[in-house]
């Protein structure tokens, strides 16, 4: 067996989703504190990168984590991971903070841009039609340029011919992440091919 991708090996799947569930149902302060201690310092690092300013980064952390506490009921585990939900809150908070600083009324807001509800379910678009063309010479250079995480999954699925489940187990990432990385990689390749055609 290949060594696990070390960046993902230590993620226990389900841990934060469970914690958010306790917060949503029981306003569980212990579960929330655990979430807070994990995510607040990471959000601060994210905020520092985005704002380049500690005061604003902390304002973003506080606002984001307050929303996580107050709106935990809105988290729907069937739509994605807890970290995804927390990321979207942080992104929206940051966006609205930046807009407010420019003091505009009636302006584009995070609520306009990012829809936090369900679009109708989609059929998982089959990737089988790609199997034959995928490794042609034309595609190889684009394949090399895929983001590392996506390329790794593609290599395992298309070159080592592993099942999605096997790749999920091997890399210790959720099955959904394997599928979504394949979709993203295929779309990048599709775009790259379109560009070379035109």
């Amino acid at each position: 067996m290949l060594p696990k991708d070390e960046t993902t090996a230590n993620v226990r799947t389900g841990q934060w989703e469970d914690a958010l569930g306790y917060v949503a149902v029981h306003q569980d302060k212990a579960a929330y504190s655990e979430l807070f201690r994990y995510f607040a310092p990471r959000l601060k690092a994210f905020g520092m990168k985005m704002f380049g300013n500690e005061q604003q980064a902390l304002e973003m952390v506080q606002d984001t984590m307050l929303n996580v506490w107050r709106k935990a009921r809105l988290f729907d585990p069937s739509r994605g991971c807890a970290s995804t939900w927390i990321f979207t809150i942080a992104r929206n908070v940051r966006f609205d903070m930046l807009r407010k600083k420019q003091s505009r009324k009636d302006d584009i807001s995070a609520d306009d841009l990012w829809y936090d509800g369900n679009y109708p379910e989609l059929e998982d678009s089959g990737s089988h039609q790609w199997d034959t063309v995928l490794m042609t010479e034309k595609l190889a250079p684009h394949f090399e340029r895929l983001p590392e995480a996506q390329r790794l999954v593609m290599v395992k699925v298309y070159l080592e011919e592993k099942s999605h489940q096997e790749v999920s187990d091997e890399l210790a990432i959720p099955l959904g992440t394997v599928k979504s990385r394949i979709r993203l990689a295929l779309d990048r390749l599709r775009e790259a091919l379109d560009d070379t055609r035109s």
Partner: protein
Amino acid sequence: MTHAVKHHPGIPLLEQYIEGTLEADIALAVAAHIDLCPHCQQLCQDLTAEQGLQLELTAPTSSMDSTDFDGMLADILAEAPLEPSATTTKQATHVQVQLKDKTFTVPRALARLVKQQTKWTQLGSIATNKLPAGDKRHVSLLYIDKDTAIPQHTHKGLEITLVLSGQIVDEQGSYGVGDLLINTPDDTHTPRTLPDEDCLCLSVLSAPLQFNKGITRLLNPLQHLFY
């Protein structure tokens, strides 16, 4: 709406949109496209999950960090969670736009801004309605009657057009509902509508159009109608 969307923003733009680093008025056009495009809805879901994972795996600020996280935690826990009624998931709601006794449907992302704006400026077979969303760029609804050509023009800046109803045809191809046309500075084209169908689009412009030919150059001083 049976038309399959053919022209997408592409992954680099979607990525910036998901990160929240794309400029707001361009992001608005991308968001409206996504409302109309199941393909990009799926990609965005995937890209958002990747961002979430990145946040989860990011290194926290160092132990040297003197931030009073305990104080912040205590402040937050002192607040009451929102009532269930305040935390029901939103439904995607589009709005109807009335123009020339015709009703158009405008996607969710534009609903709030469009509701605030009802004033149309009309010139011949073209009408515009500027949305209160402008920064550097002008964001407007653009109505073009059937069988109408916008005279050939060159873009002095970025032009993003999202077709909301009907079709637009230009030298590059044809664009239906949900399709996103992105023209970069110095692109030249002559968009037109079909002989039997009018068209409504969202237009995001970073600079006035420049009309190139003969008498249409007289339109150049009337820029504000298109801009």
